[in-house]
């Protein structure tokens, strides 16, 4: 049995503790280890996997509804134009970016923009056509800050934007305010393609061809075989889900 009793530190321990606290306070008062960034005059350089405002690419979307289904906050609704495309309600969005992870074609992407103000609750509902580019933002930073870990301690490295010497491209983008290329990380390449595991078992039902949003699966009437056009396939996995013989799968090409 474990018995818990009150800790009674010895007098020397108490004095040591007091001295420790006082020296820490004085050291911090003279030279603080603070990591505060004086936003908006300074801005932290965010990593590429930062979860900010969503960017939508209409051409890549295959209307698979996965983003709307996976959203835990029910923030994504599908809107109909020529096809169904997602729209986001930022009053509900919790920036978990499950939608970005679940998107099979990389049509939804994350940007580094996080400081957006809305005038009303209705404005927070972003329709599909406004999701295509990053919202209008004003950048007034003079100093860029990068967080670095040095000997197990978090430290700040400050660089004046106009004197960014290493990164000419970045400096040009900030000064000319071409933010869409600065704040949106490059699109993730489509990694997976559909393929047939076992062509012998194919029934020839042609369900895969009819569900394919990009018409990548073709049926050749003369040769009586199915073929997958790798160039057209976006790896959405519709055919994999619908195949009655379960012989289709996605693989990394």
């Amino acid at each position: 049995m474990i018995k818990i009793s009150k800790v009674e530190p010895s007098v020397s321990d108490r004095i040591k503790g007091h001295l420790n606290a006082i020296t820490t306070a004085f050291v911090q008062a003279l030279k603080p280890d603070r990591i505060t960034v004086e936003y908006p005059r300074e801005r932290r350089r965010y990593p590429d996997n930062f979860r900010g405002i969503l960017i939508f690419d209409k051409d890549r979307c295959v209307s698979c509804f996965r983003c709307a289904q996976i959203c835990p906050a029910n923030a994504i609704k599908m809107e109909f134009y020529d096809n169904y495309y997602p729209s986001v309600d930022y009053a509900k969005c919790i920036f978990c970016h499950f939608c970005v992870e679940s998107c099979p074609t990389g049509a939804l992407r994350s940007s580094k923009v996080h400081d957006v103000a809305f005038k009303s609750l209705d404005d927070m509902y972003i329709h599909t056509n406004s999701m295509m580019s990053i919202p209008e933002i004003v950048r007034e930073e003079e100093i860029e800050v990068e967080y670095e870990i040095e000997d197990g301690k978090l430290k700040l490295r400050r660089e004046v934007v106009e004197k960014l010497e290493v990164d000419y491209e970045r400096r040009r983008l900030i000064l000319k305010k071409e933010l869409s290329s600065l704040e949106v990380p490059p699109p993730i390449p489509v990694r997976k393609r559909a393929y047939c595991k076992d062509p012998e078992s194919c029934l020839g039902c042609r369900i895969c061809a009819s569900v394919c949003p990009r018409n990548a699966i073709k049926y050749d009437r003369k040769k009586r075989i199915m073929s997958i056009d790798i160039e057209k396939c976006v790896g959405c996995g519709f055919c994999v889900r619908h195949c009655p013989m379960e012989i289709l799968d996605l693989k990394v090409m």
Partner: protein
Amino acid sequence: MSLFEIFVSNMMNIPIIKPLIDYLMGVPVIRFIVALILWRPFFAIAIAPGLGALGLYLLWIVYFERKLTARVQWRVGPLEVCRPIRGLIQALADGIRFFFQEVIVHREAHRPYYVQLPILAFIPVLIPIMFIPAGNVVGIKSDYAIQLIVAFLALISITIVVIGWASNSRFAFVGSVREAFMYFAYEVPFVIAVISMIFLYGSGNPYVAVEKQTIPGVFLNPIAFIVYLIAMLMATSRLPFEIPEADQEIAFGPFVEYSGILFGLVMTLAYEKLYIMALLFTILFLGGWSGPYIWIIGDLSHVLWLLLKTVVTISIIVIVRSIYARYRLDQALKLGWSSMLGLSLVGLVLGVGVGWFV
């Protein structure tokens, strides 16, 4: 003897501005004003170490405390008011805002007391200043100055208790009861610590006390020094004993209902009390106004040393805010009536013993 002659007979001696004063004394009306300002008792009360120095000190300490606490806690602190000097005039800006803000007197308040008391509370702050000398610059010379300062300091707590009663609100009541308890906790050890120093110097006269400090009082009686230091923290609601005001629990305690300029007055009460206690602390333990005499500023030299020592003392004391957490009321009372009372009695014996030899 006319009033003007009385002023001129006891004027400040400041060599550096002597030509300017000589010129101004020739101008008909202005010479009365100049003579009044440079009349030593008036100068002591109205300018330094009195009201003027008190105002400057308030502007400094409010900013400094916020900035220091912020640094220790890895924040930035006040910054946006006048950015080039890193928000140095934040306290001034707050004061101006308080001045133009509406004073709301709520329905349940005891109206006359509620409005009067913040202004009346200023009196026990100003009276001790009359007895605090800085070299020749002194309001009233008295053989019992130290005892009088301690006596008038006690009045501040009473005004705070009455302010809490006049506010007639739950939090204010809790705050004033706590203030009364804290008053019981610190007053007895504080008075005994001061009495031990009076025994040590053999007089309640600040001049005698400063003269006898060839070795500073800290080393003559370190126990009374510690007791006085802790009592000072308790008396002025500094953080380890910030029990009556306790922002997180009772939202500034007795002062919860105040707004506008009245809040500005009551909020600075604790700082003013700290100023007076630190002045007394400097006189009793740090050698008062003794220091190298700077010829060029004459009488101001004493004032300068006294204020410098006081402000440095306070600036070191405010860091305690960011080191320790708040005590509970019962813990503070226990501390006051056990260890502090015991220590102060030991200090009294030590003071009498050392006083025998000094």
